[in-house]
């Protein structure tokens, strides 16, 4: 198994783990977004979605464990890469300009990542680990978003996710070696579309709820 540790511990190996776990999160976010869209359909539709989801029982626990291990890998390796990359240039340039390759997404990837992590903790405390016994999930959500501060934090967090994915999407294909002159322009456009979908789709949920709550 030594070869596997050497492989995954190398610079490209670590990037490979970032790409696979990042792709996993994008898949999760897509499913999560579809679920959240039921909130636009009102309390009954959302509650029936939640009940159906929870009826999956052990499958949900399996998915949660999968997501948790992906998260640990993505966060630990992301932090390690961030640190190694800082150390690779101990003396910084006095003057440094972008030559045209960098984007907002690529230049902020580690920082948006850390903000997402902070948001993730808040988000799980808000809804996942919150007291569920005498309140339905819908009630939890509508009471949270009656507070404009929560609406603001959630909308900003979703913009940050969109920025992270705007670079992450095409970047993960490049990391996997899938850079083909026929498909790469399409992948890059799809990345922008997906990040806009995440930003707008998730971002409007708190705003919508705050209006009807």
């Amino acid at each position, binding site marked *: 198994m030594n070869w596997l540790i050497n492989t995954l511990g190398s*610079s490209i190996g670590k990037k490979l783990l970032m790409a696979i776990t990042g792709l996993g999160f994008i898949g999760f976010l897509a499913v999560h977004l579809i679920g959240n869209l039921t909130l636009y359909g009102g309390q009954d539709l959302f509650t029936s979605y939640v009940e159906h989801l929870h009826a999956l029982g052990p499958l949900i626990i399996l998915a949660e464990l999968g997501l948790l291990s992906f998260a640990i890998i993505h966060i630990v390796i992301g932090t390690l890469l961030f640190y190694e990359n800082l150390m690779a240039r101990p003396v910084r*340039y006095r003057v440094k*300009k972008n030559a045209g390759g960098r984007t907002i997404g*690529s230049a902020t990837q580690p920082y948006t990542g850390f903000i997402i992590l902070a948001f993730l903790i808040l988000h799980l405390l808000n809804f996942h680990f919150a007291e569920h016994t005498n309140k339905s999930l819908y009630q939890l959500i509508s009471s949270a978003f009656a507070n404009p501060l929560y609406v603001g934090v959630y909308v900003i967090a979703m913009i940050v996710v969109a920025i992270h994915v705007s*670079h992450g999407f095409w970047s993960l294909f490049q990391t996997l070696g899938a*850079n083909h002159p026929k498909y790469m322009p399409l992948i890059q456009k799809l990345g922008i579309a997906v990040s806009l979908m995440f930003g707008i789709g998730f971002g409007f949920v708190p705003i919508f709820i705050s209006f009807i709550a």
Partner: protein
Amino acid sequence: MSENINLTLKIWRQKGPNDKGHLETHEARDISTDMSFLEMLDVVNEQLTVEGKDPVSFDHDCREGICGMCGTVINGLAHGPERGTTLCQLHMRHFKDGDTIVIEPWRARPFRIIKDLVVDRSSFDEIIQAGGYVSVNTGQAPEANSIPVPPEWAELAMDAAACIGCGACVAACPNASAMLFVGAKISQLALLPQGKPEAAKRALSMLRKMDELDFGNCSNETECEAVCPKEISITNIARFNREFLVASFGSSEK
């Protein structure tokens, strides 16, 4: 149409690898816009020599954009503001009278500064020594057409082989990663039948040497491609990633 301009230069001066270094201001007077950037530095150095001061050390050799020796960061851009151009091929007509120009050496942990703007890039040689070659038997040159090579592959291999190893990719990369350099050196061989037999071994040993030398990790910022004087494409990095995958999971190399 030539004219003469005056410039203020802020040049990185560093006595040796362990000196802290600092930016030093020099005036460059009456510089012809027909001069190259290095000729402009020659003029400054002549003046410094006349004044009995230490001239600025900088790397150069061919001065025709083919050897890969020259290169500094000009106002934050590796090889200066012109795309697809080495520093020696950058002309002063791209600057205006009264401009201030900040000149810094390539900065990366594996690139030790020897003096002023002169940088030790022997880490690149070490990566090549780790596997950037094909092992061939000596003897008579084989018949050229005995191994067919599709023209597109030959073109792609030639594009990768245009790399002159100047180090601008590392200098410009926000992470000081050498992936464009190594990607080009892997590609120029992996694309050709002669490079195939050792492809897996080469990909792994060059990658390991690169990591061992403490270059940063690529995060696909694509700054390298933007400053490369030979406009080497990041598709070569993707090919390196593929070669790595195939070598790691599809070959018996360890």
